[in-house]
């Protein structure tokens, strides 16, 4: 047996796949299975049964009759059963069909003139030599599809009949069924040379695709489970094999007893069915074999296939220790780089630390506190590799023996390194490294600014948490994956994190309109972590910009624009003009953060972002920021004005409809008359909403809503217009609400009514409230939007899976070319321009600035 202390090194140079001959199957087998019974009265496996002890052990304590090893040591051994009648292997139906179609019924030669066959054989060997095995396979496939069914054999001149495959596994020759025995007899007669043209390697025979013996897989791959009641529950495969053995025995008995041919045929068919479903229980034309309860049996191919199969579930998908998952919630007070970890999780996950001369006392203290007191330790690992659990009983013993070389698995503490991830992991920022901050309560806490890269919100989202266990892993995670190193997106070269919500609003108000008394300013700055006030101008009354400027580095220069289009200028760390809004502070926009990152580094940028956010929040909480229904009030004149605009629009649509009915409407080029009418009406109505929205916006007081819309932190002008003035036209698939089968949208309207109101125009606003039919139209478009997202998410998810699987091992080589794993070139210059987007600003390389810096 191979043991861990003496590893065996072998390099696999090649692997052959092929068919087993019946002789090989029998020779490989350790037991011949003859009875469907599994256990005798004492519950002991029956000799010659499916659980025969020669097939391996699955019970602790028993020894394998073949190799003499115990459970977990014995790898299991194959057995076999002799089938009373041959059956076809379901996965080889296609090649068998191809062979039958293109070989002679009488002389069994390939239906192809001698010279031609020889030529193809030479070609095939040439292809495989020159281009490898893969190319040979493709060639064989091309050849086999090219074999035309001929009416006459070119060798013996006999007439050929047409062979038909009745799915899943019956062959007919001019409406007479070919039994597997006949099929097998024909395949046996095909010569070794001809068989090569079908892609068979030498030494393999096509008749082996029709099975006369069936290998029985070892019990170790189909272990039975003992239920709590002591009852045994067998694996699906064992059940299926039981069926096969049972039918096989009956078939044997009937044949020996000379039963009528009909009965034998029926049993034979049944045997074929059982053997087929043993290999594949998802054959489309066959009813799947089921448990008594109706549950579909999981047989061989369903063990391997698809999402829950061996490959995707067990081999590609590994589960991991030292990880945790729980709900996330926001905490704007922790740093961007931190993650708040619930105490309960911190006491369960551990970090191994090796005891040395220098940290002995430190680690001893952890062990002394034990697993129940935080920060303690859960395990120690002795130098010999044995792991000991720390409990109240073992603690004293462990403490006395604790020595250099021991490893203590201590609780997570503040500052530990951890990985944090939210699915779907669509880009590299979906998994970042955070510093642990142990906090009370039961949720993971994260700075709301990192929601964007994770695409997280707090409506119940959960996230995963992993603790690296070695120094190397920790170093790698910190250097490559720490949040601050991920600020600049490799997709568009701008910061993926930025101030959000109150962080933006607060700074906007601060830089726009606030005048502060000196103590107020000091208080604000102190709250967001400033301790050095020397850069605050020595005045009693301070401008908001002067307060904001204290956060900026003293030598920072910047010029850009804010959302209103006016210039933002920062000179020597002082904001001289412009406002701080989303264009400068927000995520995925603005160059201010990008420039700070570039000049002062990731750590500084992350810290500054935290300070700016806190400043904004502090400003808002001191100034007060609230919203009320009265914020949406409009003066009577404005209301009248909006009513006038709406009335005008309705008149205009009615006029259009009238002209349409009178046939006076001129159609637009390439449109029908109805389409023209719809387009014209849509145009009028959309114009109405914009116009009344503009009128309303002029009148709306400087409320919280307008401030937020203006600085870009939340909401937009349209939202405000919908609240104060008019909701507007509801559209389904780019059209007004259609009239459906009965010629009207709702029974509230007359049939054929084309007016604005009848086709989804909402002329009320959210404050005044909607009429019932308006509410219904709103619900229609709302439902449509909901359905759309619900249907699009899985579609784009699958598209992404295909893309990432196809491109996962592409890399940019040192010469700038993009290559696949085998070194083949995909692109000669990465992105055709060699640019690393994360080193650019929004995809553009600022050459001017580089030149400036050079000088």
């Amino acid at each position, binding site marked *: 047996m191979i043991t861990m202390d003496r590893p065996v090194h072998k390099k696999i140079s090649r692997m052959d796949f092929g068919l087993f001959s019946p002789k090989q199957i029998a020779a490989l087998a350790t037991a011949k299975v003859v009875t469907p019974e599994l256990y005798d009265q004492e519950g002991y496996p029956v000799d010659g049964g499916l659980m025969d002890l020669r097939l391996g052990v699955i019970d602790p304590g028993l020894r394998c009759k073949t190799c003499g090893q115990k459970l977990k040591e014995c790898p299991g051994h194959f057995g076999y059963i002799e089938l009373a009648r041959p059956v076809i292997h379901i996965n080889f139906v296609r090649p068998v069909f191809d062979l039958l179609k293109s070989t002679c019924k009488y002389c069994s030669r390939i239906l192809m003139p001698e010279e031609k066959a020889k030529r193809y054989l030479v070609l095939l060997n040439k292809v495989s030599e020159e281009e490898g095995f893969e190319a040979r396979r493709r060639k064989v496939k091309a050849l086999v599809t090219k074999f035309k069914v001929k009416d006459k054999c070119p060798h013996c001149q006999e007439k050929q009949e047409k062979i038909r495959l009745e799915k899943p596994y019956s062959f007919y020759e001019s409406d007479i069924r070919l039994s597997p025995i006949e099929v097998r007899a024909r395949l046996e007669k095909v010569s070794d040379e001809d068989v090569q043209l079908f892609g068979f390697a030498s030494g393999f025979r096509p008749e082996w695709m029709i099975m006369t013996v069936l290998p029985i897989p070892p019990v170790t791959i189909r272990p039975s489970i003992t239920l709590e009641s002591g009852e045994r529950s067998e694996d699906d495969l064992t059940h299926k094999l039981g069926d096969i053995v049972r039918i096989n025995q009956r078939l044997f008995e009937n044949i020996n007893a000379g039963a009528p041919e009909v009965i034998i045929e029926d049993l034979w068919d049944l045997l074929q069915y059982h053997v087929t479903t043993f290999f594949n229980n998802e054959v489309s034309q066959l009813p799947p074999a089921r448990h008594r309860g109706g549950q579909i049996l999981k047989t061989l191919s369903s063990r391997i296939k698809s999402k829950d199969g061996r490959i995707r579930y067990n081999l590609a998908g590994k589960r991991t220790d030292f990880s945790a998952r729980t709900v996330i919630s926001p905490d704007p007070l922790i740093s961007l780089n931190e993650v708040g970890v619930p105490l309960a999780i911190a006491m369960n996950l551990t970090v191994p630390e090796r005891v040395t001369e220098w940290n002995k006392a430190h680690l001893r203290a952890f062990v002394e506190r034990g697993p129940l007191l935080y920060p303690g330790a859960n395990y120690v690992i002795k130098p010999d590799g044995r792991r000991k659990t720390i409990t109240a009983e073992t603690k004293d013993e462990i403490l006395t023996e604790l020595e250099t070389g021991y490893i203590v698995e201590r609780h997570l503490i503040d500052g530990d390194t951890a990985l944090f991830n939210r699915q779907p992991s669509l880009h590299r920022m979906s998994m970042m490294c955070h510093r642990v901050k142990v906090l009370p309560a039961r949720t993971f806490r994260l700075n709301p600014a990192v929601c964007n890269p994770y695409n997280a919100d707090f409506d119940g989202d959960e996230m995963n948490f992993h603790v690296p266990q070695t120094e190397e892993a920790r170093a790698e995670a910190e250097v490559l994956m720490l949040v601050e190193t991920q600020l600049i997106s490799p997709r568009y070269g701008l910061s993926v994190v930025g101030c959000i919500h109150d962080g933006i609003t607060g700074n906007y108000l601060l830089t726009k309109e606030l005048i502060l008394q000196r103590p107020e300013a000091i208080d604000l700055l102190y709250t967001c972590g400033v301790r050095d006030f020397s850069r605050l101008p020595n005045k009693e009354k301070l401008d908001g910009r002067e307060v904001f400027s204290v956060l900026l580095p003293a030598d920072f220069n910047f010029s850009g624009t804010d959302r209103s289009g006016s210039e933002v200028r920062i000179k020597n760390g002082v904001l001289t003009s412009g406002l701080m809004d989303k264009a400068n502070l927000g995520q995925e926009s603005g160059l201010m953060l990008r420039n700070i990152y570039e000049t002062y580094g990731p750590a500084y940028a992350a810290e500054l972002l935290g300070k700016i956010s806190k400043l904004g929040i502090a400003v808002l909480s001191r100034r007060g920021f609230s919203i009320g229904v009265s914020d949406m009030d409009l003066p009577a004149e404005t209301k009248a004005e909006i009513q006038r605009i709406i009335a005008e629009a309705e008149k205009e649509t009615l006029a259009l409809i009238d002209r349409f009915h009178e046939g006076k409407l001129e159609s637009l080029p390439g449109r029908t008359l109805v389409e023209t009418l719809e387009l014209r009406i849509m145009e009028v109505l959309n114009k109405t909403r914009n116009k009344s929205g503009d009128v309303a916006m002029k009148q709306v007081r400087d409320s919280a809503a307008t401030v937020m819309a203006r600085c870009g932190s939340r909401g937009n002008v349209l939202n405000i217009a919908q609240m104060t003035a008019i909701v507007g036209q509801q559209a389904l698939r780019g059209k007004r609400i259609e009239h459906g089968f009965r010629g009207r949208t709702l029974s509230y309207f007359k049939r054929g009514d084309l007016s604005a109101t009848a086709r989804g125009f909402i002329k009320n606003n959210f404050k005044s409230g909607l009429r019932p039919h308006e509410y219904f139209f709103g619900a229609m478009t709302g439902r449509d939007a909901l359905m759309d997202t619900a249907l699009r998410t899985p579609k784009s998810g699958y598209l992404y899976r295909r893309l990432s699987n196809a491109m996962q091992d592409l890399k940019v080589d040192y010469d700038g070319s993009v290559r696949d794993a085998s*070194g*083949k070139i*995909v692109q000669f*210059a990465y992105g*055709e*321009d060699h640019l690393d987007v994360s080193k650019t600003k929004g995809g553009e390389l600022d050459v001017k600035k580089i030149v400036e810096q050079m000088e």
Partner: protein
Amino acid sequence: MSFTITKHLLVPKHSKVSDAEKQKLFAAYAITEKELPKILKDDPAIAALEAEPGTVIKIERNSPTAGVAFYYRVVANG
């Protein structure tokens, strides 16, 4: 109606690469023919060139990021 696809706006210019240039390309990327992307001998875009298998085809593509980008493909049999 006959139609020359090589004259179409969206079909980039395909041209044969001389032996010397081919050697230079191979040296620059440290590759052999095996590493190059392939193009079918009877691909409509190079049908007029009558290139033999093993010939390298240079493609001049308009690129939104780089202006003009060069791409090389080796002629292969079907």
